[in-house]
């Protein structure tokens, strides 16, 4: 991950590097040129040194010849030494072009020194004429040296002409190179800076757009930022936020839906309670009367009537109590038995009941008063219309994850339209008229669906003359607790 700070550092380092490189190049070139100039000057100065010291040697010889003192002699020797040194220095200037001339030059210097020595020697031997002659020769040689210096300088110019020109040319080229480098670097840096700034502002722009989208309420668009720096980090975080928000909103919607469903089920419950209340006038009074009637029947020896009355009382009590809470299947079955006892007393032989119950399934929880309305429905539509009565089969069996409850009669059956109305619209209000509890088939269907949160909880199979077979599929574990 290249941070913005690192990008800035890179840019700065690059600029610094280029500046240092150029500075070093210029310094190196300057140093080189300086050295070359120094060399050239040195050459000229050395040659000039020869001329000067040869003239000095002649002058000091002249002084000595005029006044031959020790001081003048040592002055001459000093100048001779200087001349020798100059000769030595000049020796280093040899190159292919001036080999001959330089050797001649150095030999001339030797000759000059020898001639001055000779002159001094003649002088000390008092041979004035020879001494004078040697002096004039020395003067001539000194002049020749001066002339040869000029010749050598000339030669030097010719030899080095190309070199001098190359120095001038090179400095011209350097000027041009400087301008080109300046231009190239300027535009290079512009380009680099442009890219660099773009790499910072582009992700910011993308992020801004994404934020605008969010502000408009579009949470489903993914936030993409093509970058690897801090902005990318920001974008990733932003993206997380978007996803979280999205999930939260979905959850909220789900909750609202559940809430409304719950509200609906409560309303249904209230409605059924209201209905049941409408059908009851002071149940306690009714219970007490039923109890009294039961005991009276028992005392009068009508035990069967007494039992019947107990069943009726239990059924009533169950009705009143269990409507709004879940009960176990076991309770339901018990109520059905009581109910069937009553009905058996009513229809005697006309009603035949077959019970086939798997006891292991009875612990399943189930909304109160679910089976009873179904069984009652079967009695009303399957048994009552028939003079010969009918058979009701109730079967409870273990179906894996579910408990299968089947209620079947062999009455005239139900029309397809009616089944559809019950299952899809929950409409069975008209049916409730004849029900003891005031709770119709449709009410049961809707409550079951609400209770378990699944649609596929009930099946009705019927046809004209085939009877009605109702199948409940009760999950052993409830999917969601209300």
């Amino acid at each position, binding site marked *: 991950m290249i941070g913005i700070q690192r990008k800035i550092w890179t840019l700065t380092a690059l600029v610094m590097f280029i500046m240092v490189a150029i500075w070093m190049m210029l310094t190196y070139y300057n140093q080189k040129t300086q050295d*070359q100039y120094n*060399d050239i000057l040195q050459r000229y100065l050395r040659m000039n040194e020869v001329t000067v010291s040869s003239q000095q040697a002649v002058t000091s010889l002249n002084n000595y010849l005029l006044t031959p003192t020790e001081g003048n002699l040592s002055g001459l020797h000093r100048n001779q030494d200087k001349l020798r040194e100059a000769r030595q220095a000049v*020796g*280093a*200037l*040899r*190159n*292919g*072009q001036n*080999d*001959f*001339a*330089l*050797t*001649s*030059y150095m*030999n*001339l210097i*030797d*000759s000059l020194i020898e001639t001055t020595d000779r002159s001094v020697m003649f002088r000390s031997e008092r041979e004035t004429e020879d001494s004078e002659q040697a002096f004039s020769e020395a003067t*001539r*040689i000194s002049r*020749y040296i001066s002339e*040869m210096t000029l010749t050598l300088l000339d030669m030097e110019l010719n*030899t*080095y002409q*190309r*070199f001098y020109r*190359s120095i001038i*040319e*090179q400095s011209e*080229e*350097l000027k*041009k*190179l400087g301008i*080109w*480098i300046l*231009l*190239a670097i300027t*535009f*290079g840096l*512009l*380009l680099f800076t*442009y*890219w660099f700034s*773009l790499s910072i502002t582009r992700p910011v722009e993308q992020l801004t757009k994404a934020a605008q989208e969010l502000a408009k309420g579009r949470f489903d668009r993914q936030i993409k930022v093509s970058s690897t720096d801090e902005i990318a980090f920001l974008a990733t975080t932003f993206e997380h936020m978007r996803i979280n928000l999205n999930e939260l909103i979905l959850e909220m919607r789900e909750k609202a839906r559940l809430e409304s469903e719950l509200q609906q089920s409560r309303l249904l419950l209230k409605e059924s309670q209201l209905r049941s209340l409408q059908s009851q006038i002071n149940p306690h009074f009714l219970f007490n009367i039923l109890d009294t009637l039961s005991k009276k029947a028992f005392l009068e020896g009508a035990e069967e009537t007494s039992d019947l009355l107990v069943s009726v009382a239990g059924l009533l009590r169950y009705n009143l109590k269990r409507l709004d809470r879940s009960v176990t299947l076991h309770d339901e079955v018990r109520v059905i038995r009581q109910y069937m006892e009553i009905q058996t007393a009513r229809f005697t032989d006309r009603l035949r009941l077959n019970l086939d119950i798997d006891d292991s399934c009875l612990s399943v929880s189930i909304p109160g008063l679910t089976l009873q309305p179904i069984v009652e429905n079967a009695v009303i539509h399957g048994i009552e219309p028939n003079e010969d009565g009918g058979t009701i089969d109730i079967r409870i069996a273990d179906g894996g994850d579910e408990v299968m409850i089947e209620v079947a009669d062999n009455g005239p059956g139900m029309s397809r339209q009616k089944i559809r109305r019950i299952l899809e619209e929950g409409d069975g209000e008209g049916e409730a008229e004849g029900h003891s509890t005031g709770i119709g088939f449709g009410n049961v269907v809707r409550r079951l669906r609400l209770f378990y949160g699944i649609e596929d909880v009930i099946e009705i199979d019927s046809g004209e003359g085939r009877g009605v077979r109702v199948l409940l599929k009760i999950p052993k574990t409830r999917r969601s607790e209300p």
Partner: protein
Amino acid sequence: MHKTISLALGSICVVFLFFTMISAIRFVQSGWQPPQAEPRQSDRYRLVLITQDLGTPFWNGVGEGAARQARELGANLEVWGSYGEDREDFLKQLEIAIDSKVDGVIVQGMDTEAFDDLTKVKAAFYGIPVITVASDVPMSGSMRRTYVGSDPYEAGRLIAKRLVRDMGNKGTVVLMADERDEYDQLRRLEGVRSVLAAYPAIALEEVRTPGEQERVIAATQESMNCFPDVNAFISVDAGLTGAMVQEIGRRAQVDPYHIYSFDDNPDILPLLREGKLDAIVEQSPEEMGEMSVRLMTEWLSGETVPLNADGYLTDIRMLTAADLQ
């Protein structure tokens, strides 16, 4: 938008980089190293050829021959000298050569005391051998090792014989000579005389003149006045020929006169080509140069010691206007 800007900036940058590269390459290439210092080539002989007449075809020939031979033998040779027979400068050059202790001096001979002094005293003092070339000086006065060049005596004889053949054995001949008695001029005169002595009918008139042009013209006028029946001119010194021919041409037709000269002057060949000269003695300057350098190196390396003091003579021949065409 971004792409366009990037592309524009990028291409500009590339163009500038390209020019920068070219400039940098040119900058690097423009650097030229100074000539390197070299050690002294001590094993090579340093020879100097000195003449009074630099730049003439004759001496250029000598110089070329000498330089070629020096290259072959691996010797260092320089040609020094003065222009236009400047004797003072010539002597100075000679002295410089001796003072700078060259290994050998090849010099155009000059029969003067100053020249003798330099060669005999100073060169001998430093132990520098001297070979005269083209113009000889007497051995005794100069202490020269040897002479390389044409035999002036023989050259004089050659011209005289030619004159007799062209003119017949009777007539008047003017010998135009330089006032300064150069050794080779004297020898040439001797050569001419030695032939013409056999023809008593040929009158021989010697005219001496200084080298300046006006004086030559004056001398020519005078001689033509004094000897109106002159048939032939022999210019013993090639340097006088130009002015002489010019003056003759001004006074009369050049054709009737038989005019002869030597070749050691730049004026000569054009005059010969124009037909104003009848014939000249042609020498072998390149051979002189070659031979002198060879002899000098042989002497220095001890191959030929001593050198023949009488000299080593080079080829001479007559060259007429007809030969040039």
